[in-house]
């Protein structure tokens, strides 16, 4: 499935998500099963399938990592964690240090350090995302450059997972 085509938008990393969401709403108004309650079984089935497709496409497009994966797939570049090259030594070292801090903060129930780590890594995530966006812009006219930005996606995955862990630890501490 090409999620961009389902939503009728050009395949691009940089999207005005509010405008895309408005489009999703228009499509939902046309396709939601509630609008087909008295239709025949096959029409209901087709509408349900299309409504599911629209929601699935929106789920992909709104998520920065999945959006990137979809663009790579459209460009014929195989991605997925097991297929991507391992990140460089320097990057791994950086991640390891941060992870150690996270583990300490978790065992000490140190909310302040958690907060600092969260905002630190959020900033890293943002700048990685900008780098990825710039990469997609550059690859727009030259798809052979697509493969060179795969490692940036890999870094995004690391930061995203780190932030998810911070959030899980915070949940555990407040409950």
């Amino acid at each position, binding site marked *: 499935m090409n999620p961009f085509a389902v939503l009728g938008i050009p395949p691009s990393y940089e999207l005005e998500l509010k405008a895309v969401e408005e489009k999703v709403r228009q499509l939902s108004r046309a396709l939601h*099963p509630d609008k087909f309650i008295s239709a025949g079984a096959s029409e209901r089935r087709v509408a349900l399938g299309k409504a599911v497709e629209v*929601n699935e496409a929106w789920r992909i497009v709104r998520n920065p990592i999945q959006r990137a994966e979809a663009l790579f797939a459209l460009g014929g570049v195989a991605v997925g964690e097991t297929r991507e090259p391992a990140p460089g030594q320097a990057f791994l070292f950086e991640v390891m240090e941060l992870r150690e801090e996270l583990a300490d903060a978790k065992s000490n129930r140190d909310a302040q350090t958690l907060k600092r780590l969260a905002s630190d890594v959020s900033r890293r995530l943002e700048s990685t995302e900008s780098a990825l966006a710039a990469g997609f812009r550059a690859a727009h006219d030259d798809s052979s450059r697509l493969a060179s930005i795969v490692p940036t996606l890999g870094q995004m995955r690391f930061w995203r997972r780190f932030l998810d862990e911070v959030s899980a630890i915070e949940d555990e501490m407040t409950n």
Partner: protein
Amino acid sequence: MFLEIFDPKAPPKPIGIDLGTTNSLVAYVHNERPLVITDCNLDALTPSVVCYEKNGTVTVGRAALAKAHEFPRETIVSAKRFLGRGADDPETRKLGPYEFVAPAAGEANVVRFRVNNSVVTPVEVSAAILRSLRELAADELTNVGPAVITVPAYFDDAQRQATKDAARLAGLEVLRLINEPTAAALAYGLDKQQNGTFAVYDLGGGTFDVTILLLEDGLFQVKSTGGDSALGGDDIDRAIAHHLMSALKIDDSASSPSFTRHLLNIARDLKHELTTKSEVHVELTDKTIVVTRDDLNAIVKPLAERTGAICRRALKDAELSTGDIDGVILVGGSTRVPAIRQYVESFFGKAPLADIDPDQVVALGAAIQADLLAGSGPRDDVLLLDVIPLSLGIEVGGGVVDKILPRNSPSPTGAKATYTTQEDNQTGFTIHVVQGERELVADCRSLARFTLKGIPPMPAGMAKLEVLFQVDADGLLSVRAKEMTTGIEQLVAVKPTYGLDDAAVEQMLLDAYDHGEEDLAKRRLAENRVEAHRLIAATSKAVVADPELLDDASRVAIEKAIADLEKAAAGSDPGAIHLKIEALDAASKEFATRRMNRAIARAIEGRSVSDVSAELDAKDRHNERGEKQ
């Protein structure tokens, strides 16, 4: 009360049902206003209680509640808490007067209550309540139509399926299952015509839900939902009962079923009285116990805090904070407890709204949705967009869950997964689907095992199976599978982990009728006729609306199929009607697809992204200037 002039051809009136843990209600829309239906005592609440007496008499509601003391084991209260749960669920070990029966080998793993010499399941108890509500509606309306039934937002697949099974058993056609908080928001939103971000805090007799939703000109878009389907007023009652027991220096095991029922009733009355009084004296055995509002507040506090943790997570999932919430809507009888109300107010930092009766608001919302779906015709401006409450995953190696659909995904939704065979000539395999947020299968809730059969024999790794998981607008999961190299659609057999399969429900249906098969055939005939007429009406309307999408051959085929179906529907063979329904459906399939594609093209073109961006930009500039419209 309204007196409807008797009209044998009155169109069926769709109804909304709130099937609650403690009380149930039925409502409908009259002159564009939702109304609850009251009994002869002008009471809108039917206690969700069913009493099974030795002589076979089954009583429901207030009459059944009155018998609870005399027949504590045979009077099932709060059956909803057992709905869709396994026979060994922790719920069955909590304080209560029932005797449970373990399922025999080969029987479905569901809760079973022993009543006298027979056994009933929560689905059957719920069906008895639904039947009684349907009768209540029939007294008011000349022709009772299909129903929208509400369920807690946090209900999982098994609990939703069990609710649908109960409706089927009760002879109700279900238009849609909708989530209770969303129904409440619908009642508020259409009544007050407000836009903004709302939190619905729904603490009922047995379940807690919180839903964060955006209301925008008739669009009700749920952002996130959270809850606990075993947290509610019953737990407050139990905590009070335990408080009384420790005052009397007795424990659970020393309590007889009738004393337990008595204690729980006293606890409930205490809770109600302490809403307005600051202390209450209880005579129990030969002692007098004083319970104060402060005692109750202390008992309720841990429960309230549990709801707070769930609210925090829902806000986080919606990427919002309490300051972003424009209003908090209170739903459910337990929000009458002052300590709960105070907790909600301090949590969200604003006084909650309760101007629509929290006991009635869900049923009113359900009635509105029923009317929108099948009554006065669709209103293009109103639409509910809900989410799935729990993540959906599949078991992969080592008992680990691979999440395929994250919680709070907008519904209907779906995901695809590809599988291959592990052995040469392997013709089938099983997929285990679970629901929940944890990483291990053992910590999630098992939904069902789907067995794929009939894979063409091929060397290992050659067969490529695409499995499609789909959650429909009722929140119910279905699975389809296709072998990609041959394009063969696979048979998928479902074995629900906690639920009745089709055959078991069918058997219950037969048992429920005096003349079994004969009555069932009559019912099927009636159902198929309704379906036939609906399909004819919908197809005819579409043919008139979009003639340009039909070529002559299809038009002739559709017209013939309509004529055939009309003829079959005039006869009395339910099987023949069913065949002609399928024939019309097949004849109009391509036409339906064309209509759908055009609707999609229109929705996409209607307002292009650049238009909306320009509009948003204009809005931003407008806001920056801070002008008033």
